[in-house]
């Protein structure tokens, strides 16, 4: 036998792997490579000037800033929600637990128009914020709100299982040794869930950076102010600026791949951490 595959009496390996590779190549890898190959037709200075114009840089700043802020809020409140769902009992808990996944299941366009209607000046929430001088819809704050909604389940769902697995003996030992609840949380529980928390943060951040559907309705989409990078790609495409759209999408792809690598490392760290404790 070759060294590529260990011997097995089960049939179908060649068929299954062959089909998998063919399908992945046709659907994912070849189309993705098109973005890189088309960009390679540009010279380096051309590429650089496309991806560093002031309007593009403003869109990076907005996309990353809003995504970072939203992911931070999701870390804090995601941990809180996971904690409450794992540790406490309250009426309707099962329903709440199921609804946490709503942002995964709800089409982004629906989320976008719902949030816009809520936060517009005459909306349910917007009418209370407007007198305070806070405008959410059609400003960068609206983008932050939409990205918070989209990223909400990630932290909850990565932290929840880790929190469930923490052995009560550890906390009991801490209490026996004289730690109060806060000390037990910061010294025992928090270190155990920290890798999962970081994984959740990275997942929410990665999702937020590429998000399009929920953001464009609420953003207002003003160049330099409230225009996210994915929207800029669509705008360039609609102006038949294929080179510009492709160059920008390569920047986004490279960032996504780096984030994917970081997420894989975090998950590996998380698994290692949980097998040690």
């Amino acid at each position, binding site marked *: 036998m070759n060294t590529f595959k260990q011997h097995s009496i089960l049939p179908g390996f060649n068929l299954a792997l062959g089909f998998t590779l063919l399908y992945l190549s046709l659907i994912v890898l070849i189309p993705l490579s098109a*973005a890189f190959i088309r960009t390679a037709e540009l010279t380096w200075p051309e590429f650089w000037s496309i991806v560093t114009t002031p309007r593009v840089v403003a869109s990076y700043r907005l996309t990353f800033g809003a995504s970072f802020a939203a992911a931070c809020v999701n870390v804090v409140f995601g941990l809180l929600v996971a904690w409450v769902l794992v540790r406490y009992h309250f009426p309707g808990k099962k329903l709440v637990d199921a609804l*946490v996944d709503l942002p995964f*299941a*709800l089409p982004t*366009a629906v989320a976008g128009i719902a949030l816009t209607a809520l936060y517009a000046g005459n909306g349910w929430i917007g009418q209370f914020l407007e007198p305070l001088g806070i405008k959410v819809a059609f400003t960068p704050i609206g983008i932050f709100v939409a990205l918070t909604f989209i990223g909400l389940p990630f932290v909850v769902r990565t932290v929840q299982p880790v929190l469930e697995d923490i052995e009560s003996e550890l906390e009991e030992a801490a209490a026996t040794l004289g730690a109060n609840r806060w000390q037990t949380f910061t010294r025992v529980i928090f270190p155990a869930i920290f890798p999962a928390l970081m994984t959740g943060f990275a997942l929410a951040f990665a999702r937020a950076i590429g998000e399009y559907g929920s953001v464009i309705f609420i953003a207002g989409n003003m160049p330099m102010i409230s225009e996210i990078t994915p929207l800029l790609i669509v705008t360039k495409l609609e102006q038949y600026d294929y080179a510009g759209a492709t160059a920008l999408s390569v920047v986004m792809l490279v960032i996504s791949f780096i984030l994917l690598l970081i997420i894989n490392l975090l998950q590996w760290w998380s698994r290692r951490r949980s097998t040690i404790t």
Partner: protein
Amino acid sequence: MVEPSPQYYYLRTTMSTITFPASGETFRQRATQEPAWVRRSLIGLALAFLTLFLFIPLISVFYEAFKKGAEVYFAAITDPDAVSAIKLTLTVAAIAVPLNLVFGVAAAWAIAKFEFRGKNLLITLIDLPFSVSPVVSGLIYVLVFGLQGWLGPWLAEHDMKIIFAVPGIVLATVFVTVPFIARELIPLMQAQGTEEEEAAVVLGASGWQTFYQITLPNIKWGLLYGAILCNARAMGEFGAVSVVSGHIRGSTNTMPLHVEILYNEYNFAAAFAVASLLALLALVTLALKTLIEFRNKQHQKSRGHE
């Protein structure tokens, strides 16, 4: 036999406050639980956050949809353009989900039942579409099949249209939903191991017999779970589809795109009416998902008791 101390029960029981039958009073707080006021404020804060960010947006979809009355609502969802959008969305999902189902089973069979080099790389590649922005997912198909793309001139010569037509919408949808079923099946089939299939093969079953009679019954719930999530995303995808669709009313408009068009025309009641159908789909998806998770938990418990 020595009666265990109250402290013992105390430490053994998790998460519930213990009341002593004799006094009926709540027993002094456990060492591994927060004071009641902390618990209540944390629950309150979590629910307030979820209400603001989840429940109110969800309710508002249905409220806005029915704001102008049931008549307007039903007129909006029976409008010919809406009906054609619904039909297209169902068609696209009916193609994308089975394709990814076959892919998911094939990928999981290769990855979970065999040991080979480069397996982790393959798993990462399968997950790749999750980390690509929806807009980029659409754009790459324009680069391949669009008029300016690799195959564009050839397709135009043979009078075939993929971009700004239904095939492009299907392809973009397939791309964004590639990982759903595979990533559900891979860990499930890895956990189940290969003994049952090996026994079947040793007893003379053919490959397909082994798959249909041994593997398929074992993975059917995981398959259904993945298919439900895949379907929800396939029907709700916006960004990728928006780039390749061309937004031709009554022909290349899916439901989410129809919502966008209505909304941009300030026809809010109609936009929310169509959106409410998608929100309903999301709720049904969550209900089925919870049901399968509940069933799996019961199943595991009953297995544990055997």
